[in-house]
C-alpha cells in the first residue's frame, strides 16, 4: 500500500504541492490527470522517491521512504519501481536486450537464468524478439515503447510508473501499448499512470485529478 500524509513539496516560490492524504492500495491501477504543469509528474516522482518532499510522510509497503537516505532511495527505485517514460528514454548505445536488462546493470547484478527466462518472455510478449540485438535507432516508435515497458517490468517491480507512455504514439500504437501494459502488469503490481488521453481512463480503478485545489477523484 502507498500512503501519503500531509505531503508538502515546493520548487522555490513558483510551484507548490500540498497533499493531505492519499492512499493507493497494492495492485491498484490509478490514472493521474490534470493540466500541464499542475504537478502530476512531481507527485509520482515523490511517490517513486525520485524527489524528496519538504514535509510529510510517504509510506510504501510499511516503509517510510521519506526517512530513506539517498542510497536507500536509489536502491528502492531500482528494485521496486519500474518506469515508462513518454520519450522512451532508451540508451542509444545499448541494444534492445541490454536496454531491457539495464536495471540489473545498474544494480551490478548478473542476469540469473530466471531473469533470462523473463527476458525471453517479455521479448516474445512485446513482439520484439527479432529485434533483440537492434539498437534503438533501428526501431519504430511503438517498438521503442515496448522495449521501455519490458525494461520497466524485467525486475518485477511492485510499482510501475508510466508518464504519458502513449503521448508520442499514434492511436493504433497507443492502444497496442496499453493492451500490453494491462496484460503484463499483474494484479500485485501497483500501476500509476499520468495521461492526457481521457479515452484510456475507464480502464483504471481510480482516476485522480491533480489541480490547483489539490487532488480530486
Amino acid at each position, binding site marked *: 500500500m502507498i500512503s501519503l500524509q500531509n505531503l508538502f513539496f515546493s520548487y522555490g516560490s513558483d510551484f507548490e504541492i500540498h497533499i493531505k492524504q492519499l492512499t493507493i492500495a497494492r495492485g491498484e491501477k490509478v490514472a493521474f490527470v490534470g493540466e500541464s504543469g499542475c504537478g502530476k509528474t512531481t507527485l509520482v516522482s515523490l511517490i517513486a522517491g525520485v524527489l524528496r518532499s519538504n514535509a510529510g510522510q510517504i509510506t510504501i509497503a510499511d516503509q517510510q521512504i521519506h526517512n530513506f537516505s539517498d542510497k536507500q532511495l*536509489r*536502491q528502492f527505485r531500482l528494485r521496486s519501481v519500474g518506469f515508462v517514460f513518454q520519450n522512451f528514454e532508451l*540508451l542509444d548505445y*545499448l541494444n534492445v536486450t541490454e536496454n531491457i536488462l539495464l536495471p540489473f*546493470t*545498474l544494480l551490478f547484478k548478473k542476469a540469473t537464468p530466471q531473469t533470462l527466462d523473463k527476458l525471453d518472455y517479455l521479448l516474445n510478449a512485446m513482439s520484439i524478439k527479432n529485434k533483440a540485438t537492434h*539498437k534503438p535507432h533501428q526501431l519504430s516508435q511503438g517498438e521503442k515503447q515496448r522495449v521501455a515497458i519490458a525494461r520497466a517490468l524485467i525486475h518485477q517491480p511492485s510499482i510501475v510508473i508510466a508518464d504519458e507512455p502513449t503521448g508520442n504514439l499514434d492511436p493504433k500504437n497507443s492502444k497496442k501499448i496499453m493492451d500490453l501494459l494491462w496484460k503484463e502488469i499483474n494484479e500485485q503490481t501497483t500501476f500509476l499512470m499520468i495521461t492526457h488521453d481521457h479515452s484510456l481512463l475507464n480502464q483504471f480503478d481510480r482516476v485522480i485529478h491533480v489541480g490547483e485545489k489539490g487532488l480530486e477523484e
Partner: protein
Amino acid sequence: MRSVLFLAYKYIVHNYTKTIILTICLVLTTIVPLAAYFIIENYQNDLKKRAKQVTLIAGKRGNDYDILLRSLYYKGSYPGSLSMKNLEDMKHVGKVIPMYLPFTGHKLYTNNEQNAYYDNIPIIGTHLDYFSLRKISLQQGRLPSILGEAVVGASTAQDMNIQVGDFVLSDQKNLYDISASYPLKMKVVGILRPNYSADDNAIFVDIKTTWIIQGIFHGHDNITKNTQQKNVVISKAKIYEYPQVTLDNLDMFHHHGKAEELPITTILIIARDHKSKTILLGDYQGNENITLIQPLKVIDRLMSLILRVHAFFKAYFILVITTVSLFLVLIIMLSIRIRTQEFQTLSKMGCSYKMLRGIILMEFILVFVISIALSTTCVFIFQWLVPPQYLLQLFTG
C-alpha cells in the same frame, strides 16, 4: 565496476567517430614525447653497448667526440692520426686494437649495374682481434687472410648486392691530387652476419691494406730487373703500381720507412684490470699529442647534450598536455550537457551520481589507454623501421 566498464565500453564503441577523433588527438599529443623518450633511451643504450666493450680509446688530442664517434660509429670528422709506436707503447696494459679509418669505398660495379646503389662506405682497417671484440661472425666466406682482401658488413652487402668474389674499390679522396695513389681494388672474401650496429655498414680490411690505399705500402715492377749493371738502380719515369693485390704480386708489396711510423687513427684499449687503466690514464695525462678517452664518460657527456633536447621535449609535452587536458575538460563538460537526458533517466531509475561519474571517467580512461597503446605501438614500429644507429646520423651528419 563491471557495469561501469560495460556501459562505458558500449558508449565509446557506439560513438566510434567521437572516440576515433579523441584517440587521434591523444595519440598526436603523446606520440612526440613518448617517441623522444624511447628513442633517446634506445639511442643511449645502443651508444653505451658498443662503448662498454672498450676500456679506453686513444686518439690524437683534439675533439673527444670525434674520436669516440669515429672509433665506435665510423662517423664524424676525422680526428687525426697516431702512429704504430703509440700502439706499442700501450701494449703492456692489455689488449690493444689499432684502427685506421680515413677511407671509404664502394662496390666495383659491372657494366650491367650502372644504376646500382652507390654510397661511400667506411673502410675499417684493423686487426682480426676486432672481430672477436665485437663478436662479429661470418654468414658467408672467410675473414681476410692476405693483403687486399675485404669482408663486408651485412647491410652494405645487402644494399650493394655484394657477394663473395665481388670487388670493392677504395674511393679517391681528392680527384685532383695527381700524387695520390690509385684506388685499390679489393676482393670480397666474406660477408658478416648482422650485429645491428655500425659494423653492418662497413668494409673491413687488414690495417696493412689501408696503408696500401694510403700509398705507404705499395707494389710495383721490379725496377732493377732489366739492368745489366747490378749495383746501379735504373728506373723508368713511369713505374707501374699494382692496383690490386693478387697472389702473384703479393710479395712485391713493401714500404720504405719505419714500421713504428705507420699511421693509425685510434687505438681501442681493453685494459687487463682497473689498475692498468688508471696507470695508463696517468701516463698520458697532459700529453700534448695523444688523448685517452673513457668512452662511457664521453657518451654521458654527449647524452647530456641530447638530454637537453629531451628536456625541451618534456617542457613542450607539459604545455601540450595542459592544453589537451583543458580541451578534454571542455569535451567532458559538453558531453555531460549533451547527455543530460540520459543521465537524468539513469538517475531516475536509481543510478547514483558516483556511478554516473564513474561511467564518464571510465570512458576517458578507455580512450586514454587505447591512445597510449597506439602511441607506444607507433613508436615501437618507428624504432623497428629506423634503428637507433640511423638516428646517429642526425647528430653526426
